[in-house]
């Protein structure tokens, strides 16, 4: 018998409840970002949306992959890939903490019977040139959420700032269901038959096989090659953007023949960022594989950071160069862009 709740929510129910809660408070619900990410923060819906002046509210589940954290499915508390529910509130409302506490109620946690504390925990990602101030939220001694007020992103001060709430869904589910292993969490319950599908049923094979891949099987040489390719492409784009921003007309065909804001607006910085995210994940695999030496490590992190920070700066520039409405400033004579030629490989 579970003393926490007589009839606890399954993982998917609590996810749905949280999403509904935030949707009802004006958040855009996004599907998970469809590339490998180390954390919900890296999704463009956070990393790029927190830049610039536009208010925004979004919530999404983000499967977050951390190759080095894999444990072949043998550790009851550690996962290669875990689920984060990420909420961005830009700017944060004054009662953001109260809102957050209400969201716990939505999951069936009655705070009158629990102990909740906000303990200092600041967050920093040198790779993203980002940091923030905040807390880890402790419920009966369990860290259930990271609460961060972003201060900088891509090396730039933010205005307005954003509040980021990151719920650790597996932990919360294990807490609600009072099980000692994440793999015993009920992912879903069939309302007709009452039969449940466990977390382990859904994910154990993935944990095992991806641990094997990340720690043993990943081909180091090819992974490096992938890294280099993605990096080169991202960098190339970034360089083109910077020429464009400087108004250099002698450069690549990507500008079309127009000039000014309209051309900038269609420049695929989002693609450059996706390529950068690929690099970040590949770096994590190489790291888990033990393939990065001390001397290399700092350098590789700096390479990913250069991309992320460069893209963030370019993105801000691109946002600021947006015409107020789509009718103005759009040069009519732009020809279709020549597809981006693969860089020489």
């Amino acid at each position, binding site marked *: 018998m579970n003393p926490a709740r007589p009839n606890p929510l399954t993982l998917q129910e609590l996810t749905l409840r949280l999403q509904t809660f935030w949707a009802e408070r004006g958040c855009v619900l996004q599907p998970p970002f469809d590339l490998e990410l180390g954390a919900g923060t890296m999704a463009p819906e956070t990393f790029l949306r927190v830049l610039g002046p536009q208010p925004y509210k979004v919530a999404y589940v983000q499967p977050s992959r951390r190759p080095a954290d894999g444990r072949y499915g043998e550790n009851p508390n550690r996962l290669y890939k875990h689920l984060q529910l990420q909420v961005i509130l830009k700017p944060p409302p004054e009662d953001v*903490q109260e809102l957050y506490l209400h969201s716990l109620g939505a999951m069936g946690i009655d705070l009158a019977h*629990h*102990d909740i504390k906000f303990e*200092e925990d600041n967050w920093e990602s040198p790779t993203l040139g980002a940091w923030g*101030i905040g807390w880890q939220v402790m419920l*009966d001694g*369990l860290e259930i959420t990271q609460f961060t007020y972003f*201060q900088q992103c891509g090396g730039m001060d933010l205005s307005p700032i954003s509040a980021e709430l990151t719920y650790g869904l597996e932990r919360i589910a294990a807490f609600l269901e009072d099980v000692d292993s994440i793999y015993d969490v009920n992912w879903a319950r069939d309302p007709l038959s009452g039969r449940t599908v466990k977390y382990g049923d859904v994910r154990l094979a993935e944990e095992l096989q991806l641990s094997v891949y990340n720690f043993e099987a990943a081909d180091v040489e090819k992974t490096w090659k992938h890294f280099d390719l993605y990096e080169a492409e991202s960098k190339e784009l970034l360089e083109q953007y910077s020429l464009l921003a400087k108004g250099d007309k002698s450069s690549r065909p990507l500008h079309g023949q127009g000039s000014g804001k309209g051309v900038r607006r269609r420049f695929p910085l989002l693609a450059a960022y996706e390529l950068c995210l690929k690099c970040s994940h590949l770096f994590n695999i190489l790291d888990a594989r033990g393939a990065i*030496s001390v001397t290399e490590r700092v350098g590789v992190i700096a390479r990913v950071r250069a991309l992320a920070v460069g893209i963030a700066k370019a993105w801000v520039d691109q946002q600021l160069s947006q015409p107020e409405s789509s009718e103005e400033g759009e040069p009519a004579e732009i020809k279709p862009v020549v597809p981006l030629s693969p860089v020489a490989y």
Partner: protein
Amino acid sequence: MPDFLLEIGTEEIPARMIAGAADDLRRRIENLLERERLRPAGELAHLDSPRRLSIFAPGVPAAQPDVSEQLTGPSVSVAFRDGQPTPAALAFAKKAGLGVSLLERVSTPKGEYVAARVIRKGRRVEEILSEALPKEIASIYWPKNMYWRKPSERFVRPVRWLVAMLDDQIVPIEFGGVRSSNESRGHRILAAGRFRVPAAGAPYIHALRGAKVLGQVEREQQIRNGLDKATREVEAARWREDKPLLDTVVNLTEWPSVILGSFDREFLELPEEVLVTVMRDHQKYFAIEDAKGRLLPNFLAILNTEGDPQGLIRHGNERVLRARFNDARFFWQTDQKHSLRERVSWLKNVTFQKDLGSYYDKTRRVQRLCSWICEILRQNGTAVRPGVIHKAACLAKTDLTTELVKEFTELQGIVGGLYAQVQVLDRDMPDTTRQLIAQVIYDQYKPESANDPVPRAVEGAVLSICDKADTIAGMFALGLEPTGSKDPFALRRQANGIVRTVAEHKLPVSLGQLFELSRESYRGSAAEKKFANARNYDQAIEGFFRERLQFYMREHLGLAYDVVNAVLAAGADDVVDVLARADAVGTVRGTADFDSISVAFKRIKNILRQAKETGRRIRPLVDPGAFREEAEQELGRKIPEIATAVDAFRQQRDYARALAEISTIRPAVDGFFDKVMVMVEDEDLRANRLALLATLLKEFSTIADFSEIVAEGTRN
């Protein structure tokens, strides 16, 4: 005389910052009231919790006292013509707000002037506070702050409400977009929402208590009582006192209570260090022990709520602790799959510092340095086992590759020691040797603070100082020495550790030797190419350690500052020797002979300094043939005689007897100053007398610079 209250309501302030900020705020308000001539009737009081900093000043004057001021106007000759006021006088009278007839005349050194006596009305206290408080709030010092509206508005966390009152009246202020009111907020869960503060002072405290918020003093008491009470549920048990932890939980709660939880007895097989670290550092639980000091399978958790009637909170905490302990056990078992010896080469992949290479590089350097230092110790008669140190140094950093240390970084060193205890390090190694190696690894980071003991064995002391010296040497050579409040690598703490370890183990090795060899150990390495500060290295190290030694002697040993200065002026290289000298000087300080010597030496220093400043010649050597007076002959005779005896004792480091010898020079010195004039017209005679004094100073300042000693009569 209204009572004044300011409450800054915020989101949760980091526990570690609350006490400091509360103190800073109290000082600021105290200074503000003093500066504005609004001194309160009694002491200021403060009340802090995670969500508020409150300050209370009883009986503040309603307004500043009025001040009578004299304004000086034009000169009388300009102000009056033929006894009639001129336009200048009229303008001045108007400015002063008086009729011309009320103007006075004053005499000044420049002549007679027209003056006006005016009363400047004191400003009202609410006006002053309204204006000044926002600035004071903004200036509170935080180790780390943030912005949430504009980058120029900073505080530790967002400010959400402000209460500023004089008795029951609101003082209007604004900070961070929040306007003051008489509405405060209570405990997040137990008293959600706002409550009205009836008035500053006791009514505020009372209302706050009603809203389930206690002051810091009451919270500490409540927690202590709760710990006692919960511990009584376990037979013959006591909770482990832990002041830093207590301070933390006091500042994490507004309405604390304590629950007792338990964990499976089988976890007691894990080392106590691991269990306690998990409980204290990660969960903020107090540990419970039996009468013999052995850990019991229980813990005490501090809640920020009224209690746990259903046991839900206990259940949750037990579940978390079980997971943490399971993790620790899992890591412990996983780590055993690879021995520490295997892990040595893994250190190539762990960065020590980006320019100083990997921990593998560091391991090799420290091993080399240890063997050199062992050689010096042995030559100087200290028994030490170099083989033990060599092996310990080799394995010392390998625990950085273990899962347990990756999870619980604060256990570095300790985990290595624990693993070495249970692993086969060498097939033929006697068990006692292995235990010693394990202990040396375990102790390598000691002392970590002023209260932490130094390594137990001399072998541990050697590894500890060599490891720290390697870091300091590398960082100084890179030019990354600590400056001001910036010391990101905690080099000062590490240097303090070296000083204390050398002192307490009485290691016969000088700092100069240690750091020359530390530098030597980098020779030929890739790191050396990055050394930007090669030239100033010796000087920088020397200055840095002189300060550390001074700190240790004053703060740790509590020695008088003049003794410390006197002794360090005679050399700061050999820690053990410095302390022996300080000990001897401390004993004779204040005796009549040394008071007199110290006064005389100060005088000599002044004479010599003035002579140098005015370009007077000082003979390089004393010429005894040039003495004229009896007293100078006497001093000239005594100096070499006594100096020889002093030197003999000094060589044997028998400083008590050396100082006793020095004291015998006093009659000759006194006699000299009674009878002999130094700064005479005769240039040769003067040059010789100056030479005599210079010799005296030089010969007798090798143990301490006595001129630094503050003589009894002049001491505070």
